[in-house]
């Protein structure tokens, strides 16, 4: 695969478009310019008109009654249909009985093309500017990995002419959907939690943006809307789930939801479908016949930072002894 195969520049998530530059700044040197003041950045009138007293005083997602939830869904549908000028559907599909999702990633196959990253951005309405990516692909020198994976050796900003590069090793990382998730443990408002099917979700309307979860997450999987998120109307995915890919407000945290809007309808996550080398696997951990169970039972699997005992449901494995 060459770089021209990719319709976009391969750039990793930075949680803010200035990050790459900012990392080169010296300590205390990076002084941002101040705008003219409070009045210079009033949101557009359209957005200001979206203010809804009922939305403002909405209860925590988990405390909504069926009727209240229904009303919320319709309100949100209307709000986003108006904002983006196309029919948006917002569901709140619940977990399926007897299903706990698990993810498998074949590190011997991954070529580092970041197709998954962009498929995820498209599917989940991540902000384009400032840029937010839920998946971060790290590139390692193969030699370095021989000593064991030390994340400090990884480079998320690689920009090769083509992939895979000789002598490199790629490790994509996103939310690992831990069974004992430190993020939901520390959240002061109960705005993030684990669903019965194992998906760790965020109630974007309940999150206050304190970022304690980001301090706690061992995988850097959580991303904050530092600025006003921005998705062009023509690129918006109108098939939404209320605790999945609905556009996020500024000042809240977001992350991978295993494509809850797809997987709860029995479809694969967008990244699984997008992967050109079939390195990404997904399935029901409770189903002994599932592909993910086969991989776990027959391949050499590992989880990142197992010593933290957060019990991730994202398993890395070596699918073949010969890499690529």
């Amino acid at each position, binding site marked *: 695969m060459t770089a021209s195969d990719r319709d976009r520049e391969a750039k990793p*998530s*930075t*949680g*803010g478009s*200035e*990050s790459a530059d*900012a*990392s*080169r*700044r*010296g*300590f*205390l*040197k*990076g*002084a*941002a310019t*101040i*705008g003219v*003041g*409070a*009045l210079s950045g009033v949101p557009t009138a359209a957005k200001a008109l979206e203010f809804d007293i009922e939305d403002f005083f909405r209860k*925590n997602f*988990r405390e909504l009654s069926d009727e209240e939830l229904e009303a919320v869904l319709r309100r949100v549908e209307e709000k986003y249909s108006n904002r983006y000028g196309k029919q948006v559907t917002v569901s709140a599909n619940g977990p399926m009985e007897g299903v706990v999702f698990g993810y498998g990633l074949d590190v011997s196959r991954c070529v580092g093309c970041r197709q998954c990253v962009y498929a995820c951005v498209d599917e989940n309405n991540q902000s384009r500017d400032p840029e937010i990516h839920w998946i971060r692909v*790290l590139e390692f020198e193969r030699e370095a990995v021989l000593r064991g994976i*030390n*994340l*400090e050796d*990884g480079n*998320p900003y690689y920009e090769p002419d083509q992939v895979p590069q000789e002598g490199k090793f790629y490790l994509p*990382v996103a939310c690992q959907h831990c069974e004992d998730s*430190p993020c939901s*443990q*520390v959240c*002061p*408002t*109960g*705005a993030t939690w684990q669903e019965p099917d194992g998906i760790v979700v965020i109630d974007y309307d*309940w*999150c*206050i*943006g*304190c*970022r*304690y979860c*980001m*301090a*706690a*997450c061992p995988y*850097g999987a*959580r*991303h*904050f809307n*530092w*600025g*006003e998120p921005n998705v062009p109307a023509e690129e918006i995915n109108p098939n939404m789930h209320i605790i999945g890919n609905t556009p996020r*407000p*500024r*000042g*809240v945290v977001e992350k991978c939801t295993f494509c809850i809007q797809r997987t709860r309808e029995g479809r694969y996550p967008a990244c699984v479908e997008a992967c050109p080398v079939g390195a990404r696997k997904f399935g029901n951990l409770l189903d002994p016949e599932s592909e993910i169970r086969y991989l776990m039972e027959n391949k050499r699997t590992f989880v990142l930072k197992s010593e933290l005992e957060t019990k991730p449901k994202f398993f890395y494995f070596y699918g073949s002894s010969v890499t690529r």
Partner: protein
Amino acid sequence: MENVKLFLQFAKGSVLTVVRGNVTYYAWLGLLLLVIAAGLVAYGNQAAHGLITSNMRDQVSWGFYIGNFAFLVGVAAAAVVLVVPAYVYNWGPLREVVLFGELLSVAAIVMCMLFVTVDVGRPEFIWHLMPVAGTPNFPHSLLTWDILVLNGYFAINWFIVTYILFMAFTGRKYNPNLVMPIIFLSIPFAIGIHTVTAFLFMGVKSRPFWHTAILAPRFIASAFCSGPALLFLIFLTVRRFGRLTIPDAALYKIGELLAYAMAVNLFFLGTEVFTEFYSQTSHTAHSRYQWFGSHGVTGIAVYTWLAFTCNVTALVIFMVPILRQSMPLLAAGCVFAFSGVFIEKGMGLLLPGQTPDMLGEVYAYGPSLNEVLVGAGIWAIGALLFTLMVKVASAITRGEFRYSPTPDHRAPARGF
């Protein structure tokens, strides 16, 4: 009913006291208001554009604001530390200045709360934390604990100072049966707020720099340095401008306390440094960043060594009797101790804790000008609040502002 009437007079008198002053006083207030105005403009900018006006990013998602918060919780806690010797051991000279410690606590907690508020992405939804209206994740989230103890501590200190001042105003002796239990309660609370704040960081198992048992003891030890050091400097200032008698003995006592506190603080730091660098595990990456920088980013190391130098210099001044007996040197020692701890416990805790980030990236965070201005505004609000409270307190102590049915307004208040 009589008390309500008196209290209204007390409130009215307090307002009259704070609006009257000499040129220096007005100049000081004007300066503070100017800084507050700059802070408000900067916060308006942040409110309009989001926290993107800060230099925080996903890699370092807590910065200058939370650093100041952690530091100020220490100041709030340690200001009350003087209560222990004053009341438990009955050290006379200190007793008169305990009130200032309480006032400083009140101001520091207000600053703490403001720093947390400006750090959150959606402050308009802070009520999601409250019981009944919101869904506080208690007892799992340490942040809910912190909010609880900070508010409790605020209430305690606010009550004590108001009550003691009010009684002094009316010329009555405060009721020790009421005050003493609350003062004693404030001591474990003071340790409590700082321990819980340390737990906030220590509970994060994925960040080895914070996930260490010595963090809470280090927090307390460094707070015992920064709090009394600040109080010392405030006393010098108040003595000079506030025409308030604060005996030298009290100041030397604080110097003595600081010698112990700084020695313990540096000892704890030493145990940390030994554990990290003798073992050299991958977890040492954070300490390496702190002391030497990594991946070409060394700015933080300069600050770390600066803080270390400040703290050691302060210790030398506090320890050597000849140096300690010189008031100007002692004051310099307090400046060193305060600055050293401010760096060490603010950014020195926050930044290495998050650098390298969870996926190994080194992001060189330094606060943006906007962040610094917002922070300066909050410090100015704290200073303003403290100044006004001290103005009232010293007026009462001097007997200039006192309820009395007789015309003798100059008699010092008995109750204080």
